[in-house]
């Protein structure tokens, strides 16, 4: 589990008698092979301006044609978020910006493809989804000079490889009540997006970009306060920090008698603050109108139901399954981690084989999770076998951990690894005869131990340990000793 995951304790934010209200807009790049309206590759990190054509460069005379797969992914996302898929149309959102080749963005406006859904947080609380609409991404600008900051740059350079990459923008209702909850929401959403196959969920590559609408209001109030929109949060950590900062800022503005201005604010990671993005430009007037180069999109019901039927199990269902198998709470970190790391199949396999599923969850959430991407060397069969060896006493807990480490590092079968480590299976009866031999060899000491001289237990354990070359499970030895004494 990374430090960015939201299951770590939320930073304490003393909002006192103020309630925080957050709505999130998440832009998700779709994992199509090509762009939304042209056949150029949709790829991250290619040489600048190599994935461009007349359409995505907005050359005069070019026309867009909608990518079927992008529509399919958009529907998967909508259906996974319990939205209705509706007939939709694309609009043009007009504004001048150099990362936008046509100086308008093709986006869905008042008729989006997905409307009115919800996402359940791991706690079970439902966050409303207002819409999840399709639109095209912009190019990428690099600012040169002035330390790469936009306001101080000498000039900027534009790469249009990303221009026209398909996006789905998921707009939540203002249902989130803290920075921690916002992080839970994004983490859950990311899990859903990855599960549907629509997105790779990589925030660090910009596949997932989060803007937050934040306001505060007196606790108990039913009216919303004036909100600000926070942009440029590039990680889960900055999402939490930015919201906390902004909430504190708004409260201090309000408590000192000021008014919050509705505006867009830019999160600055370096100094940990938000800054107004207002320039001398007048307010934007996007002049939305229906994109005349595209025709309406109304996925036929049979397409929608085929997409719905093919949806894979989503994280919430998978957590429920792991919780049921293991008896652990559904909202526990360990359960979430196992699903997050796609290891829940190991738990169900272990449970099916009669192994201890709770032990499976703990091993996966701790040892396996900590091993990073080494989990791929582990097979569900091998993992189950290891759990069984441990619970049947043929390996001690320490030995089982050691075997797991080796399996993660180099692969192999647990019995072979145990053998190579010299953890020869000492069955309980083999241990029992070792104990009996030691008792027979030391009749005096045994007599005193049976008579109540408890400190001699250490002596006998030491003898058994020596006799077995250190392979005996000492807990088992002491219970055998106690059993022999009470039966003597």
């Amino acid at each position, binding site marked *: 589990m990374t430090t960015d995951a939201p299951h770590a304790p939320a930073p304490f934010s003393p909002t006192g008698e103020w309630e925080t209200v957050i709505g999130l807009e998440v832009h998700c790049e779709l994992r*199509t*092979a*090509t762009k939304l309206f*042209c*056949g*150029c*590759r949709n790829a991250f990190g290619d*040489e*600048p*301006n*190599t*994935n*461009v*054509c*007349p359409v995505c*460069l907005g050359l005069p005379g070019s026309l867009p*044609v*909608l*990518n*079927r*797969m*992008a*529509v399919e992914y958009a529907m998967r996302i909508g259906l996974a978020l319990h939205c209705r898929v509706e007939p939709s149309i694309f609009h043009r959102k007009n504004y*001048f*910006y*150099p*990362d936008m080749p046509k100086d308008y963005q093709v986006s869905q406006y008042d008729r989006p493809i997905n409307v009115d859904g919800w996402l359940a947080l791991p706690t079970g609380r439902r966050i409303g989804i207002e819409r999840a609409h399709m639109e095209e991404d*912009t190019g990428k600008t*690099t*600012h*040169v000079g002035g330390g790469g900051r*936009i*306001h101080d*740059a*000498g*000039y*900027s*350079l*534009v*790469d249009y490889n990303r221009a026209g990459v398909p996006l789905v923008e998921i707009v939540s209702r203002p249902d989130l009540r803290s920075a921690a909850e916002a992080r839970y929401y994004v983490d859950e959403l990311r899990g859903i997006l990855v599960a549907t196959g629509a997105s790779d969920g990589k925030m660090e590559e910009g596949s997932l970009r989060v803007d937050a609408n934040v306001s505060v209001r007196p606790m108990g109030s039913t009216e919303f306060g004036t909100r600000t929109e926070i*942009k*440029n949060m590039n990680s889960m950590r900055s999402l939490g920090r930015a919201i906390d900062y902004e909430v504190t800022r708004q409260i201090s503005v309000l408590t000192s008698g000021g008014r919050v201005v509705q505006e*867009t604010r*830019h999160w600055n990671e370096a100094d940990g603050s938000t800054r107004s*993005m207002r*320039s001398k*430009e*007048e307010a*934007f*007037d996007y*002049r939305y109108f*229906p994109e*005349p180069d*595209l*025709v*309406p*999109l*109304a*996925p*036929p019901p049979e397409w929608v139901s085929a997409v719905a039927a093919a949806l894979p199990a989503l994280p919430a269902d998978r957590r429920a399954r792991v919780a049921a198998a293991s008896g652990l709470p559904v909202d526990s970190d360990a359960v979430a981690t196992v699903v997050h790391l796609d290891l829940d199949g190991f738990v169900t396999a272990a449970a099916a084989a009669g192994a201890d599923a709770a032990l499976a969850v703990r091993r996966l959430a701790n040892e396996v999770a900590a091993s990073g991407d080494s989990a791929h060397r582990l097979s569900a069969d091998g993992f189950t076998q290891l759990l069984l060896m441990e619970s049947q006493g043929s390996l001690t807990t320490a030995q089982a951990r050691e075997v797991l480490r080796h399996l993660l590092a180099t692969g192999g079968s647990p019995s072979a690894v145990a053998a190579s480590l010299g953890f020869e299976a000492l069955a309980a009866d083999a241990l029992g005869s070792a104990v009996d031999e030691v008792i027979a060899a030391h009749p005096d000491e045994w007599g005193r131990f049976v008579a109540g001289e408890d400190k001699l237990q250490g002596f006998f354990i030491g003898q058994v340990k020596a006799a077995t070359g250190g392979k005996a499970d000492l807990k088992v030895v002491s219970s055998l000793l106690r059993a022999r004494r009470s039966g003597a």
Partner: protein
Amino acid sequence: MIAMPARISRADVAHVARLARLELTDDELERFTEQLGAVLEHAGDVAALDTAGVAPTAHPLPLGNVLREDNVVASLDRDEVLAQAPAVEAHRFKVPPILGEAP
């Protein structure tokens, strides 16, 4: 029936010119205010028309669901693309400083 907007003012024209990224001379401002006013006045017959219950036509065609398959098509040659650009650096389009963030 939709209310007829008031006649376009010089300030409206200046605002529209800013939105459209057109630097206008005073003379042009003057002339456009006059000419746009005349055209919009003529278009007033449309604004005044009772169209209650009439659906707008964005498109003369009853087409829908026009889709292409997600297949990669060769992109353009980068040199050919950049050769058309007014300014280029490091295989990117070079532009003067951008003062504001994207909206």
